C-alpha cells in the first residue's frame, strides 16, 4: 500500500489557505445528522469536541478520568509557542516553522509544520477570548519568555501552569457544548476497540469503568485524541492513567503506527529516589532560562553544592554549546547530562543527577530590582531577597513542587535534575488531514506522529494539540463527512458492533481467568526497565535485539501468570491497568523494532553506532529520510511502509547549537 500524505500542491505558505479555500463543506442541516466520536479530552480532544459541537455536529466525547478537566495536558508547565512577534525580536511564521523542522532534526513533514506555525497565532487569540489568564506585563499586554532551541521570545505562559489554564479553557468550551446539548460526555469510560464497517471506522466499543459493562457507540467518524505512550517506560512524567490502548487498538485494526521509537527524554526532571517510585516529575524547561546546569569538575565530588567554588564547577552546556548554552534543545541537553553522569561526574546519592542552579539569576534580578527601587547600598542578603521575589513570581509553583518532593529548598541549594521520558513524537500515522490509514479514523495531538519529527521543541505540544483541535480538524473532517451525508446512522445491532463487542469481552474474561501470581504493576515495571535500559536515551543493535526477545518472553509470562483481583462488572482499576499494560508490552516490541530499523541517530533517537567524533547525533539522510509507518499483521508481525520526506524549504544540515 502506497502512503499518500495528501499534501496540497502549491507554495508552502499557500497550501493551507488554498486547502481551506477548496475543501468540501457540509451544510448546517446535514451537520446535525452527522455523528462524531472523540476519544480523550486533553487539549486536542476537548478543543476538537467543543469546536465540532459549535459547528453543529453531534459529538460524543470519552475520557477515562472522572472528569474531562483531568486529562494530562493539565500538567504541562512551561508554555505555548506562537509566532505573534509581540516582542519585536524578529519572529515570524517562517521562523517558527523553520525552528520546528530543524528542532525535529528533519524528520517532520514540512507542510504540516508550516500549517502549525500559521495557526499558532489564532490559538493565543482564542484562548485569551475564553478567559485564559496568561501572564501580562504592567502595560496590560501579554508577556513572553524564551524556550529551548530558539533565539526569540515566543512562548506565552501562565506561571508554571500553562497546560492547566489552556486545558481549563478548552474544558469550559467543551462543557458549554455539553450544556447546549451538542456534545454528550462519557467520563470514566475507556475505549477498548474501533468498530469498522466496509473498511471505514464507524464507532467504538467503550467500557464503563464504574460498572465494568461494555457499550457500543456509533459515529460517522472517530477522532483519537488519546495522548502519548511514554508510560511504556513505566517511569515517565505522564499521568498514571496515560496509556496507548486507544491508539493501539486502532493500530491493530489497520491504522499504521508512525515512528514509534521517537521518544523525548526531557532533561530537567526530579531524579528517581528509590524502587518505590511510581512516576517522575518534570521541572519545566522554562527553568533553563534562568537556571545554569553544572556538575563538579572532579569525579565523585561529595561536597555540598554550595561548598563547591565557581572555578571547580563545569557548566558543561555553556562549555559545549556556547551559542545556545543552557537553552539547547531537549535531546541535546538530555544526552549531555547522561554523558556527564556516565563519566562519573553525577551528583546526589545515586550519582545520577546534575545541578540546576538559580543563584546567579537570583542575584542578577536582585541587583536590577535594587537599582529600580533606588536602594543604593543593598547588601548581598537584600539583593538575594529582592531577586528571590522575582524568581518566585516566575517559577514559584515549580520551586514549591520541588521542595515538597525532595524536602530541599531550591532557592538556597541547586535543584538536582536528571532526564526522564516525557513525550512521544511517534504515534498513529496521519495524512495532512489528520486521517489515519483507516478511513474515518483520525488522530490528533500527541496521539499522532505528525509535527515534531524526531524531537519536539519546548512549548510546542500545547500548540499542536490546540492547533489540531481548534483549527485543523474542523476543516479537514468536513472534507470526509461531506461524502457521508447519505450514510444514515448505523444501528449498533449491526453484526460488526456485536462481533467487536464480543471480542472485547472475551479478552476481558481471558485476562481475569489467568489468575496467576504476579501483579500487573510488577509486569509494567519489568517492561519499563527493559525499555529504559535498551530503548532509552542510547540504543544499539545488540541491546535492541535482546530487548525484543525479552519483551516477547515477558508477554508470554504476562498472559500466563498475571493476577487480577476482583470482577469484570465492577469498578476494577487493576483490570483497567492490566489491559493497558498488555498493550504497552506489544507496543514496546514495535518501538524496539523501529529503533533497530532506523540505523541512524536523529533527534531523541540516538543509535550509538551513528555519532560524530564529538558524540553528537549523526543523521543519515541518504538512507533514513522517511517516516517509518508500521502496519500490523497480527501477533508480533509488522510490515514497514516508508513515507519519503522531501525538504523544499528547510534544507537538512547537521544541527548545530554550538
Amino acid at each position, binding site marked *: 500500500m502506497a502512503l499518500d500524505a495528501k499534501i496540497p500542491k502549491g507554495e508552502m505558505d499557500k497550501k493551507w489557505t488554498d486547502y481551506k479555500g477548496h475543501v468540501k463543506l457540509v451544510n448546517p442541516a446535514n451537520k446535525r445528522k452527522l455523528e462524531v466520536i472523540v476519544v480523550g479530552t486533553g487539549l486536542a480532544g476537548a478543543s476538537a469536541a467543543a469546536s465540532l459541537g459549535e459547528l453543529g455536529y453531534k459529538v460524543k466525547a470519552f475520557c477515562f478520568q472522572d472528569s474531562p478537566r483531568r486529562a494530562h495536558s493539565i*500538567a504541562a508547565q512551561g508554555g505555548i509557542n506562537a509566532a505573534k512577534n509581540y516582542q519585536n525580536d524578529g519572529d515570524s511564521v517562517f521562523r517558527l516553522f523553520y525552528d520546528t523542522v530543524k528542532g525535529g532534526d528533519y524528520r517532520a513533514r514540512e507542510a504540516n509544520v508550516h500549517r502549525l506555525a500559521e495557526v499558532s497565532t489564532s490559538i493565543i487569540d*482564542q484562548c485569551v477570548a475564553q478567559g485564559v489568564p496568561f501572564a501580562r506585563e504592567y502595560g496590560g499586554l501579554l508577556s513572553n519568555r524564551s524556550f529551548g532551541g530558539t533565539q526569540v521570545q515566543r512562548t506565552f505562559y501562565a506561571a508554571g501552569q500553562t497546560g492547566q489554564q489552556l486545558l481549563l479553557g478548552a474544558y469550559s468550551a467543551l462543557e458549554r457544548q455539553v450544556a447546549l446539548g451538542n456534545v454528550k460526555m462519557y467520563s470514566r469510560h475507556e475505549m477498548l476497540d474501533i468498530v469498522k464497517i466496509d473498511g471505514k471506522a464507524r464507532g467504538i466499543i467503550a467500557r464503563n469503568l464504574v460498572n465494568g459493562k461494555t457499550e457500543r457507540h456509533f459515529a460517522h467518524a472517530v477522532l483519537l485524541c488519546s495522548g502519548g505512550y511514554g508510560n511504556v517506560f513505566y517511569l515517565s512524567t505522564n499521568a498514571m492513567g496515560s496509556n496507548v490502548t486507544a491508539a493501539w487498538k486502532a493500530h491493530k485494526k489497520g491504522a499504521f503506527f508512525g515512528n514509534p521509537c521517537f521518544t523525548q527524554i526531557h532533561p530537567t526532571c526530579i531524579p528517581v529516589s528509590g524502587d518505590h517510585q511510581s512516576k517522575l516529575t518534570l521541572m519545566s524547561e522554562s527553568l533553563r532560562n534562568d537556571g545554569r546546569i553544572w556538575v563538579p569538575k572532579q569525579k565523585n565530588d561529595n561536597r555540598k553544592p554550595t561548598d563547591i567554588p565557581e572555578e571547580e564547577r563545569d557548566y558543561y552546556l555553556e562549555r559545549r554549546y556556547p551559542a545556545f548554552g543552557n537553552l539547547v534543545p531537549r535531546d541535546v541537553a538530555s544526552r549531555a547530562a547522561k554523558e556527564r553522569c556516565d563519566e562519573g561526574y553525577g551528583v546526589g546519592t545515586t550519582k545520577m543527577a546534575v545541578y540546576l542552579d538559580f543563584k546567579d539569576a537570583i542575584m542578577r534580578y536582585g541587583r536590577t530590582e535594587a537599582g529600580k527601587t533606588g536602594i543604593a547600598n543593598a547588601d548581598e542578603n537584600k539583593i538575594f531577597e529582592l531577586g528571590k521575589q522575582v524568581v518566585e513570581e516566575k517559577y514559584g509553583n515549580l520551586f514549591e513542587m520541588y521542595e515538597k518532593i525532595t524536602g530541599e529548598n531550591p532557592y538556597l541549594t541547586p535543584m538536582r535534575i536528571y532526564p526522564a521520558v516525557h513525550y512521544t513524537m511517534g504515534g498513529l500515522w496521519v495524512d495532512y488531514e489528520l486521517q489515519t490509514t483507516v478511513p474515518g479514523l483520525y488522530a490528533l495531538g500527541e496521539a499522532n506522529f505528525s509535527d515534531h519529527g524526531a524531537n519536539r521543541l519546548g512549548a510546542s505540544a500545547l500548540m499542536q494539540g490546540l492547533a489540531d483541535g481548534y483549527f485543523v480538524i474542523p476543516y479537514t473532517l468536513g472534507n470526509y463527512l461531506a461524502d457521508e451525508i447519505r450514510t444514515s446512522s448505523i444501528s449498533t445491532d449491526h453484526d460488526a458492533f456485536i462481533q467487536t463487542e464480543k471480542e472485547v469481552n472475551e479478552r476481558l474474561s481471558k485476562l481475569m481467568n489467568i489468575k496467576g501470581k504476579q501483579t500487573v504493576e510488577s509486569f509494567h515495571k519489568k517492561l519499563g526497565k527493559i525499555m529504559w535500559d535498551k530503548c532509552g536515551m542510547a540504543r544499539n543493535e545488540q541491546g535492541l535485539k535482546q530487548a525484543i526477545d525479552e519483551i516477547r518472553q515477558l508477554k508470554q509470562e504476562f498472559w500466563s501468570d498475571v493476577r487480577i483481583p476482583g470482577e469484570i462488572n465492577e469498578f476494577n482499576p487493576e483490570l483497567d491497568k492490566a489491559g493497558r499494560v498488555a498493550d504497552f508490552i506489544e507496543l514496546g516490541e514495535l518501538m524496539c523494532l523501529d529503533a533497530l530499523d532506523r540505523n541512524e541517530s536523529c533527534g531523541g533517537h540516538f543509535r550509538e553506532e551513528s555519532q560524530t567524533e564529538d558524540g553528537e547525533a549523526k543523521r543519515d539522510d541518504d538512507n533514513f529520510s522517511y517516516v517509518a509507518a508500521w502496519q500490523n499483521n497480527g501477533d508480533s508481525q509488522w510490515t514497514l511502509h516508508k513515507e519519503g520526506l522531501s525538504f523544499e524549504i528547510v534544507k537538512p544540515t547537521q544541527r548545530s547549537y554550538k
Partner: protein
Amino acid sequence: MEHYNMNLTLKVWRQKNNQSKGKFETYPVNNISSEMSFLEMIDVLNEKLIEEGNEPIAFDHDCREGICGMCSMFINGQAHGPWQQNTTCQLHMRAFKDGDTIVVEPWRSAAFPVVKDLVVDRSSFDRIIQAGGYISVNTGNAVDANAIPIDKKDADDAFMAAACIGCGACVATCKNGSAMLFVGAKVSQLALLPQGAPEKESRVLNMIAQMDKEGFGNCTNTYACEAECPKGISVSNIARLNAEYLKAGLTTEEK
C-alpha cells in the same frame, strides 16, 4: 534530607459500591521510606493485598504532581492530609513517623456519592461549570490577543482564582458541604476579565442555582475551605461571588 523507614497502622474506609455500607479496615504497613509519596505507600499496601489474594484499595489519582485534581483522600481528619497547600499525591511520608496510625477516608459530602472505597463521584462540579463557567466564544471568533489590555493586577488575580484544580477538598472539609469556594473561584476569574463581562450576571445566577440543585450547602464563613485548599484559593473569591450575585440579583430582569 535525612531518610528513615517506618512502620505504620492504616485505618482505611472500605466500601464495595454506592449501594453497600462501608466500614474501616485496619492494615499494618511496614518498612515505608520517608521519601515515598503517600500514594506510593498505598501502592505498596495494594501490591501486598493483591499478592495475599485480597482486593486492593480503590482510590482516584492520575497526574501525581498536584495539578489534575483527581486524588481526594481525607487523611487524619484533613482533606489531603497534614501539609498546607498540598494535594494527597504530593504529600510525602516524611510527614509521618514510625508507629503512627493514619486514618484514611473518602471525601464525605451529599453531593459527592462514594463510588468505591476512597473514590467519589464529583460530576456535580462538571454540571456547575456547564451552568455557566465559561465565556461564550466559538472557535475562530476571537480578536487579536493584545487588542484588549488587561490590568496586570486583575490578570494576576484572575489567574490565582483560575488555579483551582477542582478536587473538592473545599467541599469535603466544609461542615456545610458548601461549594462556594469552587464556584467563587470560577465566577471571580471570569468576572475579573473584560472578556467575561457580557455574561457576568447570568453566569453567577445560573452557577449558584446549579450549586443549590446539586445539594451543596451554604457558606457560614468558617474559612475551612481556604485553609484546606491545596492551591491556596482565597476566600476573597467567595466575597466576590456574593457581590456578583447581589449585583446580578438587583439588576437582572426576568428574561
